[in-house]
């Protein structure tokens, strides 16, 4: 086993975060952090040390191909820890790589540490109710929670190329499309106004969207509105299986606050909620709560915004 710590993400911004995580783990075991790229070389890659370009499969290859390519190099180099950004594709790459290498895999971990024998970290389980400290014996594959490390800013010191040859894939990518309603970028929004089942009709979402605009915020929703009712595209869905956000202000309107939802917004700086049910769990997840009807409160907040300027 070498003392190399790999960092990989198909997403450049996430790759810079994983690179920082790799630097920390490598430091703890007096090892070497290496940032990986699969397919073509990327221009702006940042790395705390060297970068390694895995050539053979084309850029933007599906996760199965990426994991096969990484697996081939891993069998040769035997990295102590493989850190992969916990995007949807990244989680697949990590899991299938772990199965190939027959090693343990930790998911969506933050606060990584290592003593050279194991790698440990913290992850949130039971829909946000519990923090678990988890550990895996080395070598291990770990997906790194997005947003849990700052981005590395330094350019790589040196680069190496490994050619793994062609990688066959039974899966063919026919096309990739940006999701509709990509105009809302919930991840970078400072203010999110979010609607839940308290909204009675689809048309009433207009009033919530207006408020979001007036507050210079983005519109989010809980799962029923996107998945069950289809009133908003899935891209607005905040929660365990939707987008995870951490805005400065999260204003929850008519959202009961089930764990599946709060898992996606619990890291917001300030949370305010309006709900008719005083016992709604959303109030446990809020800094400011108003027990009341959103149909009265939304116009009132609009009015107060206008008068306060």
């Amino acid at each position: 086993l070498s003392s190399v710590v790999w960092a990989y993400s198909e997403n450049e911004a996430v790759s810079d975060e994983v690179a920082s995580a790799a630097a920390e783990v490598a430091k703890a075991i007096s090892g070497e952090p290496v940032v990986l790229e699969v397919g073509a070389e990327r221009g702006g890659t940042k790395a705390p040390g060297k970068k390694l370009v895995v050539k053979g499969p084309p850029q933007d290859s599906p996760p199965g191909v990426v994991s096969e390519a990484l697996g081939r190099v891993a069998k040769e180099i035997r990295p102590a820890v493989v850190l992969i950004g916990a995007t949807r594709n990244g989680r697949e790459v990590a899991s299938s790589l772990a199965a190939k290498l027959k090693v343990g895999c930790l998911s969506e971990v933050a606060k990584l540490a290592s003593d050279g024998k194991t790698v440990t970290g913290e992850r949130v389980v039971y829909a946000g109710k519990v923090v678990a400290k988890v550990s895996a014996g080395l070598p291990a594959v770990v997906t790194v929670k997005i947003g849990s490390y700052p981005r590395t800013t330094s350019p790589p010191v040196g680069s190496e190329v490994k050619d793994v040859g062609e990688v066959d894939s039974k899966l063919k990518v026919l096309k990739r499309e940006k999701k509709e309603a990509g105009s809302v970028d919930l991840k970078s929004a400072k203010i999110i106004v979010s609607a839940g089942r308290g909204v009675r009709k689809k048309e009433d979402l207009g009033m919530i969207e207006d408020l979001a605009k007036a507050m210079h915020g983005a519109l989010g929703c809980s799962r029923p509105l996107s998945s069950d009712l289809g009133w908003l595209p899935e891209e607005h869905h905040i929660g365990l299986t939707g987008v995870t956000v951490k805005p400065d202000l999260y204003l929850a309107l008519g959202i009961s606050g089930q764990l599946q939802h709060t898992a996606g917004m619990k890291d917001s700086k300030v949370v305010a909620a309006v709900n008719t049910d005083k016992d709604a769990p959303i109030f446990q997840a809020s800094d400011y709560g108003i027990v009341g009807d959103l149909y009265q409160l939304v116009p009132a907040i609009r009015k107060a915004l206008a008068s306060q300027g």
Partner: protein
Amino acid sequence: MKIAVCVKHAVDETELKIDSEGKPQLSGAAGKMSAFDKNAVEEALRLKSASSGEVVVFMAGTSDSKKTLKEALAMGADRGVLIAVDPLAADTLRTAELLAAAIKKGGPFDAVLCSEGSSDTYSGQVPPMVAELLGFPYAGYARKIELEGQGATIERSLEDSVEVVEVPFPFAASVVSEINEPRYPTLIQIMQAGKKPVDEVKEGDLIPRGQRSQLAVLSMSAQPSTRKHVIIEGSPDEAAAKLLDALKKEGVLSN
């Protein structure tokens, strides 16, 4: 069309109690079918009805988790396979190895469906691992699956894009909850589910127990709440004004 669906009997996170020391009380905690697994079962039933064939539900769990298997059978799955495991020794790779071995033994299958992750621990590791171990092409986060000729066209829902992929039979996929609306079994279906066959296999009979798991949970504690929990009173206008004042003081309102 023969479809294998993998389900998990998960801790019901909404019922999970936290003790006075801030530790979750996992022993004896209520369990249920992992929420999104219902979408996987539903999708398998839908694909079966489009072709005809069999839906077999696989679960690695203890015998008290059988009700989850029964629920899948009540929804319409044809039979179940319960792999009896030692919950303390279970980890994701071992679980995937057992599921893959049972699927291989009970096969051949045209497709293996899972949900994107379990509602309790949501690691999402098992589905890609099962696919890897079976050597099946894998399409994760499917929001649409259409059977076509010798395979399927699948829409994968990623963070900010949709990827349309094509896979031949046999394939594996995980589904997201937006793919369908799971059916509720009727009372009659629930009663009939009791008569549907469930094979029980011991994990040691599938794969001999190897070395001890390298994965461990060192500790668990409740997420401390740092929220202020201020309830703002007054008429809608008063409450709205007070709320904006508070948010201004927090410095989170943009101008």
